[in-house]
């Protein structure tokens, strides 16, 4: 089955990245078909594996401050800043809907 435009639109919203052209959409279709091969494997009774180090204990250290105070260093790489703040455009404005967005998906 092919992926619907609703799902493609949803993905562009979630990822905040665009498909750009038919090739991009086809890339996803191919990726899904490739991944579908997993169905051939019998995984009954198998637990998902998060990490190869799952049998080990995580390292915990004392909750003491050992480094920091590098505000200037960190701000150096930001393009827009004011004093010690990163400046962002207004939030709480959702990405425009499919019909209003400049996206390849509009034509589909």
């Amino acid at each position, binding site marked *: 089955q092919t992926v619907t435009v609703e799902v493609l639109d949803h993905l562009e919203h979630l990822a905040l990245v665009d498909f*750009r052209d038919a090739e991009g959409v086809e890339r996803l279709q191919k*990726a899904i078909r490739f991944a579908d091969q997993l169905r051939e494997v019998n995984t009954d009774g*198998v637990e*998902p594996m*998060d990490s190869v*180090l799952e049998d080990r204990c995580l390292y915990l250290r004392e909750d003491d401050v050992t480094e920091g105070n590098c505000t200037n260093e*960190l701000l150096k*790489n930001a393009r827009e800043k004011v004093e010690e703040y990163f400046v962002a455009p207004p*939030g709480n404005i959702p990405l425009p809907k499919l019909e209003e967005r400049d996206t390849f998906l509009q034509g589909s």
Partner: protein
Amino acid sequence: QVAAALKKGHVTPTELCQRCLALIKSTQFLNAYITVAEETALKQAEESEKRYKSGQPLGVLDGIPVAVKDNFNTAGIETTCASNMLKGYISPYNATVVQKLLDQGAVLLGKTNLDEFAMGSGSTDGVFGPVRNPWSYSRQYKEKSVRKPHSDSEESNWVITGGSSGGSAAAVSSFTCFAALGSDTGGSTRNPAAHCGVVGLKPTYGLISRHGLIPLVNSMDVPGILTRCVDDAAVVLGSLAGHDPKDSTTIQDNFKPFELPNLPDVSKLSIGIPKEYHAPGLSSEILALWSKAADLFKDAGAKVIEVSLPHTRYSIVCYHVLCTAEVASNMARFDGLEYGHRSDMNKSTESMYAATRREGFNDVVRGRILSGNYFLLKQNYENYFIKAQKVRRLIANDFLKVFGSGVDILLTPTTLSDAVPYMEFIKEDNRTRSAQDDILTQAANMAGLPAINVPTALSERGLPVGLQFIGRSFQEKQLLTVAKWFEKQVKFPMIQLEEVKRHNHDVFQHEKSASFS
């Protein structure tokens, strides 16, 4: 050998550094380096020289020129990951492994080229262009290539380095540095090592800190080591391994650096030959070499048996799902606010992020992010992501079973064929290529096991072919010992770079075998 020369004063760190820098300039056509840190390198070399003069070098690595893949953070030096997203980004800190090298006195020459964000198997998809395999310019390759009349054969015939740590592999292979750091998530260190005829070590997951390595797949990434011989790899490993409080995925066990025996003995070992690694598309040349290698071990008294890792062929599919899923998460940090590229679009945070990411990422990266997000959708989570995690366990268990049955080391090919010409390689898209090329190297990342590529012989086209050894978790000493034995047996030939040799006769005078340990 070079370390001994430094100690005896036959050559000084600054001379060494200068020669390497000159060599980098004369091999610029390889496009192996993105950034060359000339000033800081010379300064480091000077400091090293002072230490040698006062008889107090920091260790074997003091004064040794090294290169680092451009997805490791290096303080004060641009770190781009070969992407527009990070062009101009100057790291405020050193990755732990970089810091460790510098603490040992190594001289950081520069940052090497890669596929954008380490996604790819050719080192062809970065914004700074593809890396050329130094062997394209070797006498061995030229002698074997069919001379086409009227064609600019050099320009169109050059072969890829493999990837994604192609720049690092090319740098080591062309003598511009003595060791380089790469990263290995699906084979990204071993693949280019095989194509460039150098040693490529992927350590056990959890042995070396990933702090400062810009992550691709957090549960599989490891820093990789590229050198010209196995002993060198052991030395670098010794200086990098160990627990790092800044990386919670490093194990807490004490790591003891080791030296490899001069005359390794393999007669008491059991070598496993996984039959599934006779994958479709494996060239007959490599198959023959693999077979010959198995015989070498047999003749030396080792037990060589065929084993089975039944889920091998699903490794690449599993990787595809898990990788894209983790990538979707890891790439979310690139929004233009704190670092990196930022779009001029200012209407809202979401539209700014979207525009920044449109502008900053190439097709491959965007494609993986979108695929990853698809597999993580509520309706797909169980069938793709969780399923892949279950298959991962099956793959890891395959290895556990084989190692548990008495096999010490697995011997497999590293790549399906020798390096292909760039013009051939780009005919297929990145994902297809990665799926083809990572087939033999991927499973080791899935299971977190250590693996190493050892250059074995030249193909009929005069290009390097390597074989891979996979070992038990955290048994790098055994793995490297076997690798060293094998290296001594095959005596892989040194690359004969024609043009470069003419200009840099001196370099070759002093560094005959070009190893530093």
